C-alpha cells in the first residue's frame, strides 16, 4: 500500500465517521463539530489529488466561514439537546431499503465509470490556481456571473424578509 492510499483511507474513514457522528449526536453543536471534521477530511482528499487551491478554499469557505455561521446561530439560539420523536412510519419501513438501493446505484456508477474519467482525476486537472481562474473567468464566465447574481438575489431576499418585522 502506497502512503497516498493509506492517507486516503484514513481521510475517507474520518469523513464517513464524521458524517455518521453528525447524525448520531444529539446536541447541535456536536453535530456542527462533526460536520467541520467532514469538511476538513474532504479538504485533505482534495490535497491528496493535488489541487491545493481547492483544498485551502474548502477549509476557508466551508470549514471557516459557513460553519462559523452555523455555530454562531446555534449558540445565539442556545439550542438544547434534540428530543427524540417517534420515527415516521414511512422512514421506518422504506428507509433502509432505499439507503441500500442508493448505495448500490452509486457503487455501480463508480464501478462502471471508465478509465478516462479516473485518469482525468489522477492527472490533477484542477491542480493549478491559474487553470481554475481561467476556467471560471474565461471559459465559464457567464454561468459564473449568473451564479453570483443568484446568490445576490438570495441575500437581498433574506434582508427583505428580516427587515419586514421592523416596519
Amino acid at each position: 500500500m502506497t502512503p497516498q492510499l493509506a492517507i486516503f483511507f484514513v481521510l475517507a474513514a474520518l469523513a464517513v465517521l464524521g458524517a455518521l457522528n453528525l447524525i448520531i449526536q444529539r446536541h447541535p453543536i456536536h453535530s456542527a463539530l462533526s460536520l467541520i471534521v467532514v469538511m476538513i477530511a474532504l479538504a485533505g482528499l482534495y490535497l491528496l489529488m493535488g489541487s491545493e487551491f481547492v483544498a485551502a478554499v474548502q477549509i476557508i469557505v466551508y470549514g471557516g466561514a459557513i460553519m462559523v455561521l452555523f455555530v454562531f446561530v446555534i449558540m445565539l439560539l442556545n439550542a438544547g439537546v434534540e428530543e427524540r420523536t417517534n420515527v415516521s412510519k414511512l422512514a421506518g419501513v422504506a428507509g433502509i431499503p432505499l439507503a441500500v438501493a442508493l448505495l448500490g446505484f452509486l457503487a455501480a456508477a463508480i464501478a462502471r465509470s471508465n478509465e478516462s474519467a479516473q485518469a482525468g482525476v489522477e492527472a490533477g486537472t484542477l491542480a493549478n490556481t491559474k487553470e481554475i481562474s481561467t476556467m471560471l473567468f474565461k471559459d465559464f464566465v457567464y454561468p459564473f456571473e449568473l451564479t453570483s447574481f443568484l446568490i445576490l438575489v438570495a441575500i437581498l431576499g433574506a434582508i427583505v424578509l428580516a427587515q419586514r418585522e421592523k416596519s
Partner: protein
Amino acid sequence: MNSFLAANASLIIAFVKIALLLFIVLTVNAYLTWFERKVVAHMQSRWGPHRVGPHGLLQPLADGAKFLLKEDPTPAGVDKFTYFLAPLMALALALTSIAIIPFGPDPLPWTVWGQKVYLGIADLNIGILALFAITALSVYGVALAGWSSNSKYPLLGGLRSSAQMVSYELALTMSVVGVLLLAGSFNLRDIINAQAHHPERGIFGWNVWPQILGFFCFFVAAVAETNRVPFDLPEAESELVAGFHTEYASFKFAMFFIAEYTSMITVSCLCTIMFFGGWLSPFPASWTFAHYLPSVILIPFGLWVIWDGIRYETIFGRLVLPGIGTVLTVIGIALAIPQLQFVNEFVQGPFWLLGKIFVFLFVYVWMRGTLPRFRYDQLMSFGWKLLLPVSIANVVITAFAILMWGAR
C-alpha cells in the same frame, strides 16, 4: 546508524526544525508578556515587573510555574469534550500557522547530511491561503470555549468572537489580493522576492507603497482576528469578567494565552512579509556598509547592558546582566570580523525580518497602551462599511493599475 540518518535526513531535519521552532516560539511568547508588561507600564509611568530577577526578567518563568501548579477546577455543567477541546484547538492551530513562515532567504552556510537547510518548516505553494485556512479554523477555539463553559459571560464572549471573525475575515482576505496580484503567487517566498525586483530602490520597492490601502485593511482586520486591543471584545474584562476564558484556570488558561501571543507573532510576520519586504534590507543594495548594522546595534546595546548590570542592586543582577551584555557584544564583534563574512551575509535576512517583526509586536503593545476598546456596533459598522469596501476598491485599483502599467 549513520546511513539511516543520511537516508531519512530530510525527515529528521524537519523534526529537529519543528522542535527548535516550538522552543523558540514558546520562549519568545513568554518574553513577549514581559515586554508587553514593561512597555505598557512605562507608558503609564510605572515600573512593571522588576522583582523577580534583574529587571523582572525571570517573571515569565514564575508565571509559567504558577500556571502549571495552580488548581485546575472544572466547573459544574460544562460540556466536557468541547471544554477540553477548545484550548487544545486554539493552541494547536496558532502554533501550526508559524510553520508556514519562512525566516530567511538562504539555506544555512553548511549542509547537513548533504541537505540544504532553509529557515522555516513548510514552504507551501499556497502559503498564504493555508495560513488563512488555519486562521479560519482558529475561531472555533474561542467560540467553543465560550459555549462549553455553561456560563453567561463566556457565552457572550464566544458569540462576539464568532461574529467578529466572520465580519473581519472577508476584509482580511480581500486586503491581500492586491499583494497577490503584484507577486503572481501565493507562496510567501515569491511574495518577498517580488518586492526585490528593484534592489536599488531599497525601502521604496516594498509593497506597502502601492498597497497602502491594502496594508491598512490588512493590519486592522488582522488585529481584530487576533482579538487584541482595540478589538478585544471577546474578552473585554470590564464587561465580561474575562470573556470566553472566564471559566478556564491553570494551564488551560495558559494555552489560550499562548495561542493569543503566537497569533500576534504570526500576524507580525505576515505584515512584514506581505507589505514590508520580509527579509529585504530597507537600504539600496549598493550600500554594502549597511551589512554592519547588526554589529552597530548589538555592540552598543551589549555594552550598555554591561554598564547597567555592574551597577544593579542585587548580586544576581550584577552577575547575570553583564553576562548577557558580554554575549551580545561578542556576537556583535564576531559579525564584524572579515573572516566571518559568510556568517554576516547569512544573518542579514533574518536580522531584517526579525527586526521588522519586533517593530510590529511593539505596535501591538503600543496600541494596547493607547487605544480604548470599540463598542460592538462600532466594530460591526467599521468592519462592514469601511474595511470591506476599501479592500475591494483596493483590489479593483490594483488590478486596473497592473493592466495599464504592468506589475513592476
